[in-house]
């Protein structure tokens, strides 16, 4: 019976759009009856005062234009047809909207073989409240700061800019979450590739102890007799302010200056740092010492490497060394998905030092599985 009602609603909707105006009255009656049978609350919600008022207004405008051009009789006829057509569309939409939810959509897309599309639409549904809330906040700030029409127009690009940047940040967080959890079909490759190397990503916020964790790990691996290669980047501070980075070879202890903090406008690779060749050179030499059965430690990779520059060519060569037991790479949270893609890693264990705290080293060791 439900199927029959749904079919009647669909046919009535089609007839009202493409049939003669006289049929529109009967189509409306049939559509409302079928919709009421299927879902009475949907009909009540669809035909609320504001919506009906908008429909009447649109029909009245159309009727007025046609009456002016073709005479009152024709105007009344066309206005009436528009009214009926819009009412049927509204009723059909109200029923359809309540029948389709995220889960039904996911089931449908999975059945059709578009699982990723279903996940994208699910993500959109979940993100909608957050985006709407941010839009409201940005709009409030824009309204309060703008004085007069000219000022409003002048600030309009800024409004768009803030909203779009916020949206991009939410998208980065969503991508990081998908990778960190590792159970989303979004991150699953279409073809299962053989795992080239045990990859451990060490992540966490600034000053959360990522470098200390990998140094402790290096000590443990050294005690276990595991061959090591790689480097750590140590922040240099003056009066408590970060002024640059030095690169330290994990095996030799040799150090070289890597980056100097500068003004935003004169940084390299679009960053606030000026990079020095000697630091990259030492990084390349450190990574070249990687051995089969060993572990390579890279602290850390950033936006420069994700653009294919900096340490990235040497890292890509190092993780492809045959027989390499594992790779430990430090990277900030938002860059995790991009890094995994850049290294073509089909699987990885992500250790967040902020969340795991003192257990981080043990977790990395068990993920690498190289203890002797």
């Amino acid at each position, binding site marked *: 019976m439900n199927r029959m009602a749904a079919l009647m609603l669909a046919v009535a909707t089609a007839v009202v*759009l493409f049939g003669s105006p006289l049929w529109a009255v009967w189509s409306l009656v049939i559509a409302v009856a079928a919709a009421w049978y299927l879902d009475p609350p949907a009909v009540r919600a669809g035909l609320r005062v504001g919506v009906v008022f*908008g429909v009447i*207004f649109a029909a009245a*405008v*159309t009727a007025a*234009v*046609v009456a*002016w*051009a*073709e005479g009152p009789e*024709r105007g009344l006829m*066309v206005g009436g*047809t*528009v009214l009926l*057509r819009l009412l049927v569309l509204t009723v059909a*939409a*109200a029923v*359809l*909207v309540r029948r389709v939810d995220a889960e039904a*959509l996911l089931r449908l897309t999975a059945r059709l073989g578009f699982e*990723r*599309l279903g*996940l*994208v*639409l699910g*993500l*959109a*549904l979940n*993100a*909608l409240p957050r*985006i*709407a809330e941010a*839009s409201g906040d940005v709009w409030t700030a824009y309204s309060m700061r703008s004085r007069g029409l000219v000022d409003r127009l002048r600030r309009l*690009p800024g409004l*768009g*800019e803030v*909203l*779009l*940047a916020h*949206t*991009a*940040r939410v*998208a*980065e967080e*969503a*991508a990081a979450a*998908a990778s960190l959890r590792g159970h989303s079909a979004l*991150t699953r*490759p*279409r073809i299962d590739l053989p795992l080239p190397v045990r990859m451990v990503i060490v992540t966490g916020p600034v000053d959360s102890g990522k470098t200390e964790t990998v140094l402790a790990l290096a000590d443990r691996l050294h005690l276990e007799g595991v061959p090591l290669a790689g480097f750590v980047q140590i922040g240099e501070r003056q009066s408590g302010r970060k002024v640059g980075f030095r690169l330290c070879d994990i095996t030799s202890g040799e150090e070289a200056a890597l980056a100097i903090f500068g003004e935003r406008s004169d940084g390299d690779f*679009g*960053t606030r740092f000026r990079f020095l060749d000697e630091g990259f050179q030492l990084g390349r030499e450190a990574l070249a010492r990687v051995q089969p059965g060993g572990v390579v430690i890279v602290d850390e990779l950033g936006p420069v490497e994700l*653009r294919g520059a900096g340490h990235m060519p040497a890292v890509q060569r190092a993780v492809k060394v045959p027989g390499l037991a594992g790779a430990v790479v430090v990277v900030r949270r938002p860059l995790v*998905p*991009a890094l995994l*893609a*850049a290294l*073509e890693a*089909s699987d*990885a264990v992500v250790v967040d030092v902020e969340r795991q705290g003192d257990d981080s080293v043990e977790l990395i060791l068990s993920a690498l599985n190289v203890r002797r």
Partner: protein
Amino acid sequence: MRDVRPWTYAALFGTLWGAIEATLGTAVYLGKLPLRGTIMGLAGLLCLVCLRRLQPRPGVCLLAGVVAVFLKVFTLGGFYPGPIIGIAVQALAVEIAMTASSGRPIGAAVGGFISLATNPLQRLGMMWLVAGSEAVSSYLRLLQEATARVGLGGLRPVVIISAIVVATGLVGAAGGLWAWWVAGRVMRRLGERV
């Protein structure tokens, strides 16, 4: 592991576009504001061009369009075909133009031109579908009268419509370049290299 960011960016930018369409769009359409199609077209253009600059992968604009249509139809109850067709056409136009231009500013301008130039034609099509051919001919007569009042009498409807199409297209082209400029500012704000 595949880079998931094109998917999440398309989802989020499509969400933003869908949210704008469902809130601002509904308000301007119900309020019958003048140039409502152009206003909403420029908002969509901004989302699409910025998305394409941040994630220069073919298909992201189309996916964002699918998300925006989905939100417009299923979440927020918009079932009138006009805006839905408008969103789909705009996403397709920007996708094709940006892909063909390899993501250069000319792509944003051409995409903007096509997506906004189709607005008046789409409006005529929807008028024909919802109100019938009489409403279309009445609307065209109204346009002829209006142009005659400003000293351009005797113009055929097809000439008037073509002029409107070109004018809105040019606004769209300018809007595309404006969106490109705003997208550059967004990229700088996010610390990306422009």
